[in-house]
């Protein structure tokens, strides 16, 4: 592994983790697609600022792009508030327009400069290490690594300092407002954080793959845990894993590193949704199979209880009746009855009639009331 490889991987990990942290709250606040809008429209800020200062390394670019991101959010919300379009349409109208202006400006006026359209989508993480940060002639490493590390530190600090506010406003905006935290301030502050992160990551992975890094690891983490602090840490870990795994996969087939990182984030998410211990699809299927019997047993007891002593008890509480009315196969009905019998909840009487034991009656009442 060359020094170059190490630097690329380091940058990939820093980018991925920096994206995943605010991503947790994007997912929980149902703002996932706002990241899509932001990551596209920041290009306009970059392009406009570039025309102004004529220097791709100028800090004004980051500032202008971040501002554009926040303006995008405001525009989407303003458009939605006119009640002429729904929110999803508002998003789908605002960012393509801003992005289109940016792309056209690049194609028309900046074709020869370092900004080109492909880089916007692909990112150029593989080339990032070639742009070095030099202070007084000393090589301090890739410039984007410094920028991204600063953003990562900013994200960690912001999450640590405003943890309580973010948490409360995410789960109960009304309560947050009542406690004196302005939801609008938190919202726009947070969107600013997302914007600056997107701006930093944009250089490395391009505008669309930023979305994958922001959303997929937190979504996967949410399937693995119910606790917010764990979710944050897990998101970072999954993001870092996706970054490194993506790098090596790309290496193996000589393809886009950024694309491969996004694909890996997708693989991680797919694995989570299938195999998460409690919330995964596989676990769900197994649990349902188990619970089907439990549920059927309870259903049987409630049925018996409801018809106990009624005029039709003699008919309803028959073994044969279960097949007809509860639409159980004879085999399934026998299994359910045997199970309940073993648990001492009911007894079989002559002629196939079923009767609840006192214990069974108690249990049925209890389950029905919930």
């Amino acid at each position, binding site marked *: 592994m060359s020094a170059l490889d190490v630097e690329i991987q380091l940058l990939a990990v820093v980018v991925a983790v920096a994206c995943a942290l605010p991503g947790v709250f994007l997912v929980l606040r149902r703002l996932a697609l706002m990241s899509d809008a932001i990551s596209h429209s920041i290009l306009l800020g970059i392009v406009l600022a570039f025309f102004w200062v004529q220097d791709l390394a100028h800090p004004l670019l980051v500032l202008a792009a971040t501002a554009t991101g926040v303006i995008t959010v405001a525009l989407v919300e303003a458009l939605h508030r006119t009640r002429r379009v729904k929110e999803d349409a508002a998003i789908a109208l605002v960012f393509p327009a801003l992005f289109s202006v940016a792309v056209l400006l690049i194609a028309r006026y900046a074709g020869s400069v370092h900004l080109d359209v492909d880089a916007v989508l692909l990112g150029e993480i593989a080339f990032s290490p070639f742009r070095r940060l030099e202070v007084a002639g000393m090589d301090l490493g890739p410039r984007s690594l410094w920028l991204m590390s600063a953003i990562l530190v900013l994200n960690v600090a912001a999450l640590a300092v405003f943890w309580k506010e973010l948490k409360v406003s995410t789960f109960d905006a009304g309560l947050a407002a009542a406690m004196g935290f302005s939801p609008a301030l938190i919202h726009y502050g947070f969107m600013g954080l997302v914007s600056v992160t997107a701006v930093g990551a944009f250089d490395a992975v391009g505008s669309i793959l930023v979305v994958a890094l922001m959303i997929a690891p937190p979504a996967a983490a949410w399937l693995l845990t119910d606790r917010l602090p764990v979710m944050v840490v897990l998101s970072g870990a999954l993001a870092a894993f996706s970054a490194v795994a993506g790098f090596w996969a790309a290496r193996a087939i000589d393809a886009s590193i950024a694309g491969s990182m996004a694909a890996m984030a997708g693989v991680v998410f797919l694995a989570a949704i299938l195999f998460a211990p409690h919330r995964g699809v596989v676990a769900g299927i197994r649990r349902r199979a188990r619970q089907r019997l439990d549920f059927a047993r309870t259903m049987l007891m*409630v049925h018996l209880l409801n018809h106990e002593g009624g005029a039709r008890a003699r008919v309803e509480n028959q073994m044969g009746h279960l097949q007809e009315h509860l639409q159980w196969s004879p085999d399934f009905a026998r299994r359910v009855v045997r199970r309940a019998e073993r648990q001492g909840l009911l007894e079989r009487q002559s002629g196939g009639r079923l009767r609840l034991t006192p214990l069974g009656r108690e249990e049925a009442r209890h389950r029905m009331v919930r």
Partner: protein
Amino acid sequence: MIRRESGAPVPAIEVNDLTVAYGEQPVLWDIDLTIRQGVLTAIVGPNGAGKTTLIKAILELVPRAAGRVEVLGRPYRDARGEVAYVPQRGSVDWDFPTSVLDVVLMGTYGRLGWIRRPGRRERREAMQALEKVGMEAFADRQISQLSGGQQQRVFLARALVQEARIHLMDEPFQGVDARTEKAIVEVLRELRARGDTVVCVHHALQTVREYFDEVALLNVRMIAAGPVDEAFTEPNLRLAYGGRVPFLQGVTGFEAPGGGP
């Protein structure tokens, strides 16, 4: 009225052992319910009792975990044309670009089948239905311009053109003005007069006695069902709503024995 060979009338709707679960959480437990033909029945119960779910389960809009539903003595699927449905007003987007008449015409779609469009005859029927609910002047109005009560009447008109004999309505009186309430009650009585059956999910306990013939008290399981006089009693309401029922005072129309709790 549809009768069995023996001459006894077939129930409009017969629900047997119906259980519905969302995920693993049962929302209806082992419901048995018989709705007679030609009567107005209210389904009453606290929030989360499964009233809407019961109607949706009858209509096969939600899957049943167990149980059978028969409509006029046939499985629901074979008798679908006999059943009209008035969903909750809030279930659709009233900003949809369409006119009142157009919404009412949707009631004829089932009869028209695939691809065929509503024609002059359907339009005439839709206008008649709108007249019945006092909305004929609004036929060309865009639906977002309607008040809540007017929206409800449009939904009612849509059910009327379904030409069904059984009408399932989900909270038709929810949040409507007095004029609409009166209009709806009139339509319900007209339906009953021609032998139709109406089942309403109903919230306002104080009007149950005035509007309905029969009542089903529901709270996840069936608490009581039958003629209002027999089933709509304070003990049953207590069972359905839990112990805390000071608001029930006087609702049932009976003096509480011994002068109250």
